[in-house]
């Protein structure tokens, strides 16, 4: 008799446990306000990407098309993946001194792991991480970017 009772009560508690789970599932099914799924390409306008998100490396340019990079190559040496290639040209200033200036700041997005160590290493704080993330292109070559804008100059450190 006792065994029979235990048998039926175990069946009953089994159904009860299934019912508990199903009730929770149905609760969320009938409460559309609790849905958290976002429809990505449709919600691009309202999408919130935090400012700190590491999307890509950019060279900071100000409104006069001037950047702060002195071509010291610290970032290139720090980068663990060889993502950065910096070429410089030597220019003669008016008073006859030789000076290295930045020619090309080449950034290979396809090889970057977004570790932000180049940002840490830069003594001039000339580069930063930007929160853009839609990087897909049709050709791999397009991922190799030149970061200094055409015609940009080194920011003059001397105050006039």
């Amino acid at each position: 008799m006792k065994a029979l009772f235990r048998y039926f009560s175990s069946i009953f508690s089994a159904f009860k446990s299934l019912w508990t789970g199903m009730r929770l599932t149905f609760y969320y099914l009938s409460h559309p306000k609790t849905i958290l799924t976002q429809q990505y390409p449709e919600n691009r306008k309202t999408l919130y990407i935090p400012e700190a998100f590491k999307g890509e490396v950019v060279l900071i340019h100000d409104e006069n098309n001037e950047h702060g990079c002195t071509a010291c190559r610290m970032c290139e040496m720090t980068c663990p993946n060889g993502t950065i290639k910096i070429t410089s040209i030597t220019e003669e200033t008016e008073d006859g001194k030789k000076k290295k200036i930045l020619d090309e700041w080449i950034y290979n997005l396809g090889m970057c792991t977004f570790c932000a160590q180049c940002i840490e290493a830069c003594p001039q704080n000339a580069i930063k991480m930007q929160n853009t993330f839609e990087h897909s292109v049709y050709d791999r070559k397009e991922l190799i970017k030149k970061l200094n804008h055409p015609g940009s100059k080194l920011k003059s450190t001397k105050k006039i």
Partner: protein
Amino acid sequence: MEIPKQLIPLEDTPGEFVINVGPQHPSTHGVLHLRIKLDGEKILEIEPHLGYIHRGIEKISESLGYRQSIYLTSRMDYLSAHMNNQACSLLVEKGLQIEVPDRAKAIRILMVELQRLASHQLWWGSAGLDMGAVSPFFFAFREREQILEIFEETCGTRLTMNYITPGGVMNDLHPDFVKKVKALIKQFKVNIHEYDKLLTGNIIFQKRTQNVGFLPRDLAISLGASGPVARASGISCDIRKLHPYDGYEKLDFSEIVMDKGDSFTRYLVRIEEMKQSMHIIDQLIDNIPEGDYRARVKGIIRLPEGEYYQRVETARGELGVFVVSDGNKTPYRIKYRTPNFSNLGALQYIAKDSKIGDLVAIMATLDLIIPDIDR
């Protein structure tokens, strides 16, 4: 001693046959390849084949500086990225004898415990998925998504952080951090009861995990199992308690040890650990000390000649980093003792003589991360 090339022969013998699970199988969570010798439904032998996602992280690290190689460790156990980074950072700090500011220590513990929560949540969802319950997966992702958003705001990434660096952390907390973490913990304390309703109390789940996949205590010790897997077999092995680091010694939390050793116990240990993590976060979130978030460390790190070892508790067990330094700016040898590798070793003993259908349940509660096994 001769090392056998193939433990399980490729041909079937009468009455027994060999099947392959993986390397691409929905229930192996990655590229784990198991060769299983069966007698009917009974498992006679299991042989894991590794190396499908071997990237040579240890070897690459030998040619990178101490600071540079840390980002690679986020790619070992990607669900415990913060802990892996922390292990390497602690090792460098030990070698250089740097004192980490109190604020950085508090931030580290907060981040690490959030990561543990996120990791266990994902495990909980996928454990349900392995056993045929689909809805837990979405419930788990609801909370995990909030944690990842918090990470995204402060660390800038969601999975492969590289946030904890030698000397402290990479950047300061986002202004909303405290508010968001509080809201999350408050919400999760309510939501964790839904976990019990959906899976813990579910009769199908219980029948599939209770009294299945026993890992005896002495076997767990000799296999070097760690983390929730070992703690479910009655071994006290929480590194946070045994060898406290980053100020865990000042916090009040308890180590979850249960001794039954079956799949369901491993499940319960992780559920309880989530509650402990929330308890730790509760203690710290209101009193994050003011001050620097990073101590000054030289640009190029050179560890003094010698051997260094540091261990931390990741979401899956004990991670050990062993470095031999010859005084140069790159390590002479670096070795990671990863928790999943040892826990995988337990699989062939646990699953022996059980049914093939139980293998999935056993693997789900072992919570293996394959990139961590292969490195």
